[in-house]
């Protein structure tokens, strides 16, 4: 299990380091964090299998299970303060708590329009939408993701969503 724990610590450290890097323009971070998580998983499995010893596959699986679970839990906690509207509402309400109308002021600060603006910026940055003269159109890549989204929603039997 030790190599899996070491790999997780390396992943967490690199992610936090990456978070502190200055950014000149808006760039979604989660895809990069996911790529790092998976790259380190491959490196871990290869390293454990290559270091010799009996039964390399079970040893690689044992370490991967540890690393993947800890890494996934870390990403879950990491992504919440960045993307969750519910968390933003709670944090904003706490900061405005001394005001008598904290709830209404929070709704203004975290309005649906502002939230939509943030999401649109992220979708444009990922090449899923393009903006021209105030209209957003889907790119071929975005259309593929939309088709996948509709199909998976049907398989999972989830609602309209959002």
């Amino acid at each position, binding site marked *: *299990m030790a190599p899996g724990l070491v790999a997780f610590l390396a992943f967490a450290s690199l992610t*936090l380091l990456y978070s502190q890097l200055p950014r000149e323009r808006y760039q979604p971070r989660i895809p990069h964090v996911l790529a790092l998580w998976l790259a380190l998983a491959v490196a871990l499995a290869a390293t454990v299998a290559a270091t010799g010893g009996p039964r390399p596959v*079970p*040893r690689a*699986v*044992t370490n991967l*299970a*540890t690393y*993947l679970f*800890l890494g*996934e*839990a870390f990403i*879950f*906690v*990491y992504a919440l*303060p*960045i993307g969750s*509207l*519910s*968390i933003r509402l*709670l*944090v904003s*309400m*706490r*900061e405005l*708590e001394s005001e008598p*109308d*904290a*709830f*209404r002021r929070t*709704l203004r600060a975290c309005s*649906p*329009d502002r*939230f*939509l*603006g943030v*999401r*649109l910026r*992220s*979708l444009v940055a990922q090449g899923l*939408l393009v903006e*021209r003269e*105030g*209209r*957003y*159109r*889907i790119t071929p890549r*975005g259309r593929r*993701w*939309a088709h996948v*989204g*509709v199909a998976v*929603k049907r398989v*999972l*039997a*989830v*609602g*309209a*969503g*959002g």
Partner: protein
Amino acid sequence: MSGVVLAVLCFVLFFLAHLAASHLLRIGRKEGVLLGFMAAAGGAYVLGYASLVERVRALSGPSVVSPAVDFLTGLAGFGFLALGYVEFWSLFERSVSLRILIDTAADPEGLTPDQMARRYAEGRGLEWMMDKRIADLVGSGMLVESTHGYRLSGRARVVARVFRGLQRVVGSS
């Protein structure tokens, strides 16, 4: 590795059961039911480890680690699968970005932000999404009614403080 094999078996069994229930039953609190299925799968792994692990070991071969480490590794493997499924499910159930993509893909002319806000989630609108989030926060005891709408509960205040700290750590304003 037998712990991981058993964990995968438990997860697959309960994942298929959850999928079948989602299609066959009208479920009100979907998130709660999903978490219930995953908790039951975790319980099945813990109970099953003691009684079934020897049979699994006969299939997967002798363990390369001690029984305690094997059990914990299986638990980690199960946690990875269960948390992954919960996150994957939530992504397709709740993701605002995916909903925007689906709505925009449906219109060849593209959409303005105002049109997106109105058409969001098959015409429910962005206000509906906001109301849903607030209803969830009220339902989970984070917000309580007050004379000025809602105020934070004691638990929510702690959660907000923790996440404000995390926002600083991850560099999110």
